[in-house]
């Protein structure tokens, strides 16, 4: 598997191999933006990361990381194998999966049918589902459905302020993507743009915006780690 290169040397922190699944049953709510942010969060933190694009007929992650993203058509068994057989490996490489709206149901149907969450737990892989909210209740309903289907998987609701009037899903662990400064919007949306390649420490609007998001990423990683430690101590 081809992992996207980190930007600095690794810190060597031992943890379960994380698999972040960014999804929504609705298109154009900012899933790919969240996936890009996660990938660059890993790279800036000097942690290896691999990316998977499960979009069909939508703007996708592969456009931003050409040649570095594994694309999969979730309805094809061969592609399911390329995807899930990689996601289940505890190799210390973080995985980010961008699940397009049209792939939402088939992706989770396959994951449930093949017993992904149980096998992930057995192999010390940590799946985390980030579900991006929409203007209506559909994302909240989808989130409840996922909670029922995958009760032992961490679920995080993402409130993207750019999606006007996005429905706030009432649950703890919500991640907030602040409105991107209008002057930066065009820059960030360019396929050649990478958050990780911006000069570090440069005081800028972009840095300030990123800092707000990356702090939340660190917080939820810490929460997951603490939960894991607490479970291990109890066992």
């Amino acid at each position, binding site marked *: 598997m081809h992992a996207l290169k980190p930007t600095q040397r690794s810190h060597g922190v031992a943890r379960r191999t994380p698999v972040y699944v960014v999804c929504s049953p609705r298109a154009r709510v900012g899933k790919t933006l969240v996936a890009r942010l996660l990938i660059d969060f890993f790279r800036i933190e000097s942690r290896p990361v691999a990316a998977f694009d499960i979009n069909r007929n939508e703007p996708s992650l592969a456009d931003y990381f050409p040649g570095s993203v594994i694309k999969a058509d979730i309805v094809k*068994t061969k592609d399911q*194998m390329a995807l899930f*057989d990689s996601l289940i490996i505890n190799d210390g490489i973080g995985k980010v999966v961008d699940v397009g709206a049209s792939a939402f149901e088939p992706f989770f149907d396959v994951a449930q*049918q*093949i*017993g*992904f969450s149980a*096998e992930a737990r057995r192999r010390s892989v940590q799946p985390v589902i980030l579900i991006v909210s929409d203007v209506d209740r559909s994302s909240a309903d989808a989130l409840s459905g996922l909670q029922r289907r995958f009760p032992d998987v961490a679920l995080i609701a993402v409130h993207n302020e750019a999606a006007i009037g996005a429905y706030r899903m009432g649950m703890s662990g919500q991640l907030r993507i602040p409105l991107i400064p209008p002057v930066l919007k065009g820059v960030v949306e360019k396929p050649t743009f990478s958050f990780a390649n911006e000069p570090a420490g440069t005081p800028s609007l972009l840095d300030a915006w990123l800092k707000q998001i990356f702090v939340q990423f660190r917080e939820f990683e810490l929460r997951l780690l603490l939960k894991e430690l607490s479970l291990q101590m109890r066992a």
Partner: protein
Amino acid sequence: MTKPTVIVVGADKGGVGKTTVARSLLDYFTANHVPTRAFDTEAPRGTLKRFHADVTEVVDITAVPDQMRIFDTLGNDEHKVTVIDVRAGLMSPTLRSLRDIGFLEAAKKGQLTFVVFHILGPSIASLDEIAETATFLGDARYFLVKNFINNTSFFEWDAATYNSYFKKIKDAVDITIPKLNEMASEQVELASVPFLSFVANKGSNGQGASYSFVLRGYVRHWLGNVWAEYDRIKLTDLVGAGKVSILQTAQNH
């Protein structure tokens, strides 16, 4: 001596998945710790033997010496259940032979348990087989198996037609075998191992294998559904044993 059980898996038509059902039964009994042996009547090739070599013998069921090997040994050894995978075209002749040698009479007297898994194909010819089979059944427990594993097409016959045939046999029960993902099915064929070994990622000699997690997941899910059907008909009770879940089995296997 425990009462032996003989399970005949057959159909007169070929290509309807008899051996697949026989394999799923052997896995089911393995999982439930029921000592089982099998006879593969597809002499000399033996497809069932390829998957379950340790418990399977290839026999010519039309030959008297082989009939003796099967039926004269019932209850003589440690095997509680005998599964006979009857090759295409031999279902009716086999049942006729069983009647002629007094096997059906022994079942009637309660000396053994006789179970028939009649595998139905999608064509109307399969339904005609039911009527023919009915004349031999006596006191057998009769299960009509609608097998979707190898076929994506709908069954040609409608519910009313099916029911008219179904009612010809007293106490007949139907079982549905769902479709298994084609690639998963192909990979198990290539691996030539029991479904249970494939799920547990084991090769033919019990060594670790590297089958796809996705395909193993599909097989586990499918096998779970098939076994749910066997649980529904209380198959372990029928042969006098308890039952175990598929997850538990895969973990122990």
